[in-house]
């Protein structure tokens, strides 16, 4: 009898351990999935932020914005070709 009870207890323990392992694995997987989703969201957010900044930088650097401001605030003008001097690089320089 005692031997049979031991077997039952052993099976019960094995069942509980297996169940706990499955539960723990599932829980860890769900946590990992949640973390992955959060990271993806953060990456998407950062990508969006970068794209927005690039767009704003490009808009600020565009001739449509820069030229009128340079003319109005700094008194600059678009140079005619006679005002552009291209200095030849010495031979052998990079």
């Amino acid at each position, binding site marked *: 009898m005692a031997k049979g009870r031991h077997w039952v207890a052993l099976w019960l323990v094995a069942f509980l351990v297996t169940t706990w392992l499955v539960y723990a694995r599932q829980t860890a*997987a*769900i946590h*990992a*999935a*949640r973390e*992955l*989703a959060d990271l993806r*969201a953060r990456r*998407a*957010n950062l*990508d*969006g*932020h970068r*794209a*927005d900044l*690039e*767009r704003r930088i*490009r*808009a600020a650097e*565009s*001739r*449509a914005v820069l030229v009128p401001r340079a003319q109005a605030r700094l008194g600059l003008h*678009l*140079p*005619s*070709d*006679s005002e*552009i*001097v*291209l*200095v*030849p*690089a010495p031979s052998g320089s990079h």
Partner: protein
Amino acid sequence: MARSAVRIQVVEFGVLVGLALLVGRAAQVQILQGRRWAEEAQAQRTERIVLQARRGTLSDRHGTPLAVTQETYHVGIAPNELRDPVADGSLISRRLGLTAHTWQEALRRRYAYFAGPYSALEVQPLRSVRGVHLESVLNRFYPDPAVARATIGRLGDDGVGASGLERTLDSLLAGRAGAAVVLKDRAGREYESPARVIAPPVPGLDVVLTLDAELQEIAQRALDDALRRMDADGGDVVMLDPGTGEVLALASRQRDGTARPSAFTDTFEPGSLAKIFAAAALLSLRRVSPTDHVSGEGGKWRVLGRTITDDDPQPSLTLADAIRVSSNIAIAKFAARLTPGEQYATLRDFGFGALTGIEFPAEATGRLRPPSEWTRPSAASLAMGYELSVTPIQVAMAYGALANDGLLLQPTLIREVRDASGGVRYRHRPEPVRRVVSRGVVERGTGTEAALTNFPVAAKTGTARRVVNGRYAAGEYTASFAALFPADQPQLVLVVKIDNPHKGSYFAAQTAAPVTRSMLEQALAARTVALDRARLSTAAPRAAAAPADDDAGLVPYVVPWPYERDSTGVGGGPRRVVPDVAGFGMREAVRTLHRRGFRVALRGWGVAEHTWPAAGDSAAAGSMVTLFADPYAAARVRSRSPTPPPRGPRR
């Protein structure tokens, strides 16, 4: 006892039958219908979803993104799941830009859906709000929507390229969608567990275009300004690299502000722009010599029942004069020395009447009729640029052939194709179509308004009457301009076309030429424009080395006269005036002589004293000029000449 035994047997039989039925049913369900039930169960628990592939990026030649794919979101709201409808509602309305009325409407529904699409930045604060469900979707964005809009094109509602390069390159850009399986609960909601990927999505290839975003902006702004100033119906600008056939900028604009790709699709009669091709045919077939003159007929010539006129009558003209003053009479007379077949073949060789082969979904061939369909005046008309319709891109490529030693290249908009890891899958190599002629034609041209002070520009104007409903419309003109910059070893071909300017002059020299000048000046001053400044810097001090016989303001053509097939023309080149280099340092004196096309032999060292042939004499381009130098020459030169030789740029 016997009765109980019978009862037991009955019960046993009943149990056996029951078990048999159970086993039979189990066999039916598991074995016979097993596949169907398994599929049904899987369908209830799982869902197959499509994983969108990221569409490839389109960028300019410097890597500036022109079309990118980004993750965006549709937003679903379940009002009954909101913890604090007032506070959450305020946040949601603010982030999604909803009016109070729209939000109240949403609250009355079981599930409100806002398609957006909303950017990651907009929805970021909503991620932690209970009751807000985000559905991510990849979307196409154009960081600067106005840049090369017609060339780049757009996607259709189905996400497939509908126009422009988005359409042509769709198979490269689209990538391949993947698939995954997700778990669902009884209510059909997805479990928060990772999806099982069946096939990963394959991202599309990234395409680096030949366009230069800064040149493109310069071209668009210059064209917009010109159309506004001239109150014109429309216009086009094409810029390309003659050495590679790479298109650097393409701007098209119509009066109503739309930007359809008319540089590829709309044809026009080139007028005087085409005279250069008749001249090329005459020279390559040796039907004219440098000294051949034809009469200018006092500016009016009646031939084959038709009167041809010149705006700038000349008593007599060489072929070079015919191009320089854009004489209709002279070019028509010279062109009579060609057979119709020769004239047709030359125009065809320059690419007219045929597709250029550029990677664009729509392109017009233009019209070049075969000689069998010509009328008697057709030869003269074609020489003057009439009875011929061309697209701006065809003209640019034909002038590119002149700049490229007569080699016609296939134009391209694609520089590189890269995979997602950055590996180059394709890189453009210049693709010759055919050799048209070996060298170009004339020494000078019209186009004063495009001339720069320091940088030589080779250019030709064209002003042609417009055809409306099959007839020439009174008072309507197309002004066009083709330029090679710089004239020596051109790096840019520019073609500007202005349709029907209403304000001011309609002549190309006063309309299209100043636009070209403005664009060139801006391109020179820009930091990132695709110009080889090292080569330009050696060509720059044109004023310092300006030949004495160079008329100020005229735009020189740089190709030797007379034309020499497949030769550099050494010894037989044009005669040029030897510049005065007395007092120059040796290096500067040698450079000055080289720029004038002479070879130099040195005698002595120090400061240049004199040359042989002497300054002011003429010598054939490519011939040897001996430079005599002396360390004490500077003092002697100063004593001879009170004014130092000009070295600065000529203004």
